[in-house]
């Protein structure tokens, strides 16, 4: 197991290299000139040229990439073209906000989504099943920014219970995490329902009932543990996505996380910032996947890693 984890961690290196190469090339294919953006509309061609030289963008692309890798080897992602602050520092300042939001959103989503899915599966085609499946459909279809704005209208403007945006107290985190959770909860509820429906028709569930177990135990112990694999998969994927920055939600609620950082950086053609942030996203995604794979083995003894 330990060896497996080491192997997986080593294998992240080529993946991240691949990401960085693709990213490097694609960024430079984007229309828009970072030097021009930075220098402003009024700058003379000479001034733009000076900035281009400062950014190192006048060198051939393979030289730029080699320099980038050389710095990366020392865990140096360079400095932001926009703020001149080290990229690492900028990311580090926002990462906790993003992680906090993602963890809260995924926890809320599991807390409501899994029980809702179970109840729907236990009573298929009942009113409660219809309620769960139709709410899930609404949750998936509703645009996040619209839901966010509606929550702001109700809870901040009308009721004045919660702040409309920003950070500072636990109150600030309620609306953005609810907004994000409403989307994720729908996925989790649907996956739980279909996975449980399948498991509940298995023979071992009948065996568990034939032993004289309480129905609640049959469902929460014998059935749920078998239904967990697909649920964990969805939770992992969604969590990875949330860590990749919830751009819209962070924008609506003026939440200083990685999502807004990457959007601002893209608009400013801030290459080092974009590269750094995306690499961090990639790393987080790979780590989440590794953790998910390890949880599989805990839940299902048939899964073993060598």
């Amino acid at each position: 197991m330990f060896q497996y984890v080491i192997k997986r961690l080593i294998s992240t290196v080529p993946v991240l290299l691949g990401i960085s190469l693709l990213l490097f090339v694609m960024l430079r294919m984007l229309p828009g000139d970072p030097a021009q953006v930075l220098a402003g509309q009024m700058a003379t061609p000479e001034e733009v040229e000076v900035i281009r030289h400062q950014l190192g963008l006048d060198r051939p692309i393979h030289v730029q990439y080699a320099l980038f890798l050389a710095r990366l080897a020392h865990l140096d992602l360079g400095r932001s073209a926009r703020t001149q602050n080290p990229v690492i520092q900028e990311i580090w300042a926002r990462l906790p906000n993003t992680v906090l939001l993602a963890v809260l959103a995924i926890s809320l989503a599991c807390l409501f989504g899994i029980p809702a899915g179970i109840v729907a599966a236990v009573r298929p085609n009942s009113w409660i099943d219809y309620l769960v499946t139709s709410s899930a459909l609404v949750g998936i279809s509703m645009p996040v920014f619209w839901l966010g704005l509606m929550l702001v209208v109700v809870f901040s403007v009308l009721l004045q219970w919660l702040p409309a945006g920003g950070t500072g107290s636990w109150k600030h985190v309620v609306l953005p995490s609810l907004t994000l959770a409403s989307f994720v909860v729908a996925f989790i509820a649907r996956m739980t329902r279909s996975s449980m429906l399948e498991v509940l028709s298995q023979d071992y569930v009948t065996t568990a009932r034939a032993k004289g177990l309480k129905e609640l135990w049959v469902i929460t112990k014998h059935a749920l543990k078998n239904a967990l694999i697909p649920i964990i998969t969805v939770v992992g994927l969604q969590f990875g996505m949330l860590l990749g920055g919830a751009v819209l939600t962070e924008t609506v609620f003026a939440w200083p996380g990685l999502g807004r950082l990457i959007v601002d950086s893209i608009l400013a053609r801030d290459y080092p910032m974009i590269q750094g942030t995306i690499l961090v996203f990639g790393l987080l995604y790979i780590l989440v996947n590794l953790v998910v794979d390890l949880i599989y083995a805990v839940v299902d003894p048939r899964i073993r890693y060598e």
Partner: protein
Amino acid sequence: MRDGALLAIRDLRVRFHTLEGSFYAVDGVDWHVERRETLGLVGESGCGKSVTALSVLRLLPPRTTEIQGQILFEGINLLELDTEQLRRIRGNSVSMIFQEPMTSLNPVFTVGEQIAETIRLHQGLTPKEAWDQAVEMLRLVQIPSPEARAKDYPHQLSGGMRQRAMIAMALSCHPQLLLADEPTTALDVTIQAQIMDLMLRLREEMHTSIVLISHNLGLIAEMARRVVVMYAGKVVEEAPVRELFHDPLHPYTRGLLGSVPWIGRKQTTGRRRLQEIPGIVPGLMEMPSGCRFHPRCPEAKEVCRREPPPTIHRDDGRRVLCWLWA
């Protein structure tokens, strides 16, 4: 039927509600099991044997099935118990083994835990005591190094070992009645013999009554004292095992016996083809009129097509559902 029967099923009707309508999978079945007796329940797939067995512990999905009639266990009608009372009987005084040991054990719990769970539930032992008891049960069903096997998951055991573990689980609370639904069908022949030997031995040791459901007549001949033959949701014949094999009354039973390959038959009875029963068991939606077996029956008469046959109780205690004996 005697009053002292351990389990008596009276006029059992099981109806499935489906999208295409409602159908009786079991339609007026009567039989009983005496204490310490092994009853064989025989019939083709789809004749209602398993449904009857599952109804005893009310294991059919309650929202789509309707059970009518009486299922008397020690005089108590199981169909009238509330869920709490029923739970105290399930796995405790009546337990069940299923056909497919691969799928009827839960893949994500150890074999020991699955057995110990039943013991904890019904005998109120501590987890440690229940675990030791589970290991003892595995030893009893002759699983080698039971301490180690108890910690194994079902996928780590062979098919025969899994069925032994199922039996250990079913017998862990010393039930008075064991419902064994095709317990050896999924196993290969040598393992089948071992499992049957084991069941025979445990029956003697634990004084458990067994309802053995099988389409394997050889198995029934070896294990059962009395046999009930079912066809299309009805009991068509009941007889002590010896009489049934020597002198089957119902044409369906004769057909079943004729379709068993018999080694050595050639010498004594001359060259005889292995027989088959033409056609298949009718679906629940297309039950024939009159006698349900008449479209496949070589001796069908006009009356068989028109009217359902009466149950004939003979003086020797046998019964048969057929116009031939009316």
